[in-house]
C-alpha cells in the first residue's frame, strides 16, 4: 500500500496527536493523581502508628488508673500517720513520751540529718539519735517492740546496748531512728 504525500502528512499528524494525548494524560492527568495518592498514602502510613501509639498511651493510663485507688488509700493512711508541723517539734516528744512512759528517763533525742527521700518523691527522711543512759534491757526490748509496732514509718538502722560495769542491772542504749515526713 502506498501513501500519498497528503496521507503521509495525516499519518504523522495522527501520530503526533497520539503522542500529545498520551503525554498530556500521564503528565497532567494520571501523574498528579498518582502523586496525590502517594502523598496521602504516605501521610496515612505515618499517621497510623501515631494513632496506635496514642491509643496505647490512653490504654496504659487507664490500666494504671485501675491500680490507683489502692495506692491512694495507702498514701492517705501514711499521711495520717505523720503529725502536722515540723518533725523537730513533735518527733523528740513522741519518742520521749513513749520511752519515758515505760520508766526510761531521761531520753535524749537529737536530729542528725534531714534529706530528701531518695525513694519517695515529695517526702523527706529525718535521721535521729536517741540516747537512753539508764534502762533495763528486758523492759527496753518490750517498749521498743511496742514503738516499732505503733510507728510503721519509723525504722531503726542501728542500735547499741552497753551493759554498765558499775551497775550491771542497767544498760545504756543508743538508738538511731529514721522517719519519713511529707515535704
Amino acid at each position, binding site marked *: 500500500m502506498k501513501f500519498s504525500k497528503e496521507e503521509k502528512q495525516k499519518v504523522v499528524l495522527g501520530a503526533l496527536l*497520539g503522542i500529545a494525548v498520551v503525554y498530556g494524560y500521564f503528565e497532567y492527568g494520571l501523574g498528579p*493523581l498518582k502523586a496525590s495518592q502517594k502523598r496521602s498514602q504516605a501521610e496515612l502510613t505515618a499517621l497510623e502508628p501515631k494513632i496506635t501509639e496514642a491509643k496505647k498511651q490512653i490504654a*496504659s493510663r487507664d490500666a494504671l488508673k485501675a491500680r490507683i485507688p489502692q495506692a491512694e488509700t495507702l498514701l492517705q493512711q501514711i499521711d495520717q500517720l505523720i503529725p502536722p508541723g515540723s518533725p523537730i517539734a513533735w518527733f523528740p516528744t513522741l519518742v520521749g513520751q513513749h520511752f519515758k512512759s515505760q520508766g526510761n528517763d531521761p531520753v535524749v533525742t537529737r536530729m542528725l540529718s534531714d534529706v530528701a527521700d531518695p525513694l519517695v518523691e515529695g517526702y523527706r527522711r529525718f535521721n535521729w539519735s536517741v540516747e537512753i543512759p539508764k534502762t533495763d534491757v528486758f523492759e527496753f526490748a518490750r517498749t521498743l*517492740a511496742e*514503738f516499732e509496732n505503733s510507728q510503721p514509718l519509723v*525504722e531503726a*538502722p542501728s*542500735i*547499741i546496748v552497753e551493759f554498765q560495769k558499775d551497775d550491771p542491772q542497767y544498760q545504756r542504749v543508743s538508738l538511731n531512728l529514721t522517719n*519519713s515526713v511529707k515535704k
Partner: protein
Amino acid sequence: MALHLNLNHEQESLRSARRRDPLKLSMFGLALIVGGFVAQYFWAMGKSSMQTRHLAQANAEFATLSPLAAAAVTEEGELKQKLANSDAFLKRIEGRFYWAPLLQELVTNVPPNVQISRFAGDGGGEGGKRLQFNLDGVAAGAEPRSVAEKFRQNLGDLLGKKYRNVVVTFRGDLVVGKETVTLDGKEVPTATFGINVQIQKGDATPAPTGH
C-alpha cells in the same frame, strides 16, 4: 466481448480513499485510547478519593486522640509517681527489721555463765540484704573457751530457727584473762569474746544455720 464501462470509478475511488483516510483511522484509534484513559482516570480518581476519605478520617481521629494522649502522658507520670511512692512505702514498711524481738530473744537466752557487755546492731541500710550485730561479753567456767564456743553454737541454732542464712563467727581471739568470777560458789576463770552475727533480711523460710 461486451465492453463494460464503469462510469462511477472516480466516485468509488474517492469513497475508498475516504474510508482508509489515515487521519480518520488515527482519530478512531486515539478516541479508543482516550476512552481507555478516561476510564482509568475515573477509576484512579475513585481510589484516590477513597484514600483521601480514609486520610481525613484518620486525621480527625488523631486530632481527637492527640490531646487525650498528651493528657494521658502527663496523668500517667503523676499516677506512676503515686504508685512508686506507695510501692516504696509498702516495701520499706514490710522490709523493716524489728530489733525488739531479736533483743528479747537474746536477753532471754543468754546462759548464766555468759555475760554480755555490749550489743551493737547495724541494719545494713535501706535496701541492704544483710544486717549484722556484734556481741561482746565474758564467758565463765572451768573451760571458759568451751563455754563461749557453746554459746556461739547455741546462738546460731536459736537465731537460725527464726532468721534466714544466719552466720555466727568469733571476732578476733578468745582471750582467757586472769580475772575469775564466782559461779555456783566456785571461783572459775573467764574468757572475753566477741561474736559477729550476720542475718539475711526478709521473711522467707529460715535456711540452715551456718557457722
